[in-house]
């Protein structure tokens, strides 16, 4: 599924911070984790993750260090900071609010949407 760019950009911060809150990681592994967690729904362009990581680093949400990986290559690992954890909590609060609002909208308003998967079978969301 194609997710629009703005949504990807907006959600990248909480997603990356959450993954790093689990454990320290590096670019490629973070992408793999995103793919796994979203069951393939979130398709990021690989390269675009790095400017995001650098932004988080600049804001002090993560710190970076170069280490030798098990393959012998130099690899840049990222670790979430205390400020990053606070930011993650904040993001979580905001996204839950957005999520709750949207859930309410999908269920309480009577609107007709264009079909998503089946072009000929229009369906209606009735009030619960």
């Amino acid at each position, binding site marked *: 599924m194609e997710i629009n760019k703005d949504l990807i950009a907006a959600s990248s911060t909480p997603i990356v911070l959450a993954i790093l809150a689990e454990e320290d990681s590096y670019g*490629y592994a973070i992408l793999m984790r995103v793919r796994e967690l979203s069951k393939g729904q979130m398709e990021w362009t690989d390269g675009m993750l790095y400017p995001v990581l650098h932004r988080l680093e600049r804001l002090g949400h993560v710190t970076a260090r170069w280490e030798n990986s098990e393959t012998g290559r130099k690899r840049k690992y990222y670790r979430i900071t205390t400020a990053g954890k606070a930011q993650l909590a904040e993001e979580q609060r905001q996204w839950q609010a957005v999520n709750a609002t949207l859930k309410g909208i999908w269920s309480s308003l009577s609107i007709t949407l264009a079909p998503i998967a089946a072009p000929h079978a229009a369906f209606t969301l009735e009030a619960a």
Partner: protein
Amino acid sequence: MATPHNAPDRALEDQIDQWRSYLRRRQAIQSVDVAELEDHLREQIDTLSSAGLSTDEAFLVAVKRIGDLNALSREFAREHSDRLWKQLVDAPADAGDAPARSRTDAAVAIGLAVAAGVAVKAPALFGLPMTDGNESFYVRHASLFVLPMLTGYFVWKRKIAAGTLRWLGAAFVAALVFANVYPLAPMGALQMLTALHLPIALWLAVGVAYAAERWNQVAGRMDFIRFSGELFIYYALIAFGGGVFTGFLLMLFKIIGIDAEPFVQTWLIPCGAAGAVVVASWLVEAKQSVIENMAPVLTRLFTPLFATLLVAFLATLLFTGRGINMERDMLLAFDGLLVIVLGLLLYAISARDPRAPAGPFDVMQVVLVVSALLADAVALWAIGARISEYGFSPNRVAVLGMNIILLVNLAWSAVVYIRFLRGQGPFAVLERWQTNYLPVYSVWATVVVIVFPVVFGFR
């Protein structure tokens, strides 16, 4: 699992090399980022090839997944907007030994700059303080305080061979001898001429050290011309900053009732001026590939202005038929004019791709050179009739000699340039002419230093 790094795959390594150098050309993506992205690319390739793809296919897929490099570069630029302003002093913490090398460079340069400052003050230890009565000594030796340090910097940096080193040493020893051996009147005309021409003569030694083994090549000497122009600009900027600094220093101590003037006169300005030459040279060297050269930019700005000025001058002269009121000392001003025109020509050449076809700017250059030649011819004609009745003082001969040297250079440049405009010769001829002409200035300056006192009887 296929592990390409255990058994390096030549073709794959080549492809990655290519991809890396392509990425490096992006200004916003620095080499640390390239390293990070490369690690990503390699891991992706490993994963894909262990899933059964050939390394070729794996490479293509991995590159595709990294995404469009233009978009990526834009994203990096947005996150790192500072990188679009090339930073000089704060050298990027790149991989490899580059930072260590540039630190050593800086240390050596600053050490030599301090040495130049110490050299300026050293004579004071031997009973020659920088006070009235000793001006003659300091004026004669001004270039010898600085240029050996500057040459030393390039000798160290370029690892100059012992043979060349002996010649350079001999040049400076000779300069020291001729600055002192003649019994010239203190602060007289001949002594001032020596003081002015010694640095021009020695600048060739700096050039030989700067270009090192490339001095025999047009490109090597051209680099030295570029270096000289940038050095001049950096020095002017540092001098401006130094002036502001001095102003504040004087002001701050004045408000607490201390007169800092003597310190400024005998320490700050002489030592600062000497050391700044080495520091400016080091900056030019360090930034040459990082920042756009300034001299060609100024050339672009001022070539049309000077061309217009000279054409307007000649046209007014021609149509109004005004007489020329040429004071005999004005020839010096025309020397200055020719130097500026030569500078404009040189720095236009230095930044020009010799393979590019002739364009409007080339026409402008020719107009500039030809009109400068005409203006100078008018000046020479106006003064020529009377030069014998004024008599040949050392100053006048020196000024006239410089004028003729510049005139010859520009006249032949004009011929070569016009041939190029008419498609009768390559642009490289002009480049070769200018770089071959470099020693002429130094030879003339050497003649002024060595021969003039003898000819004019040590006045």
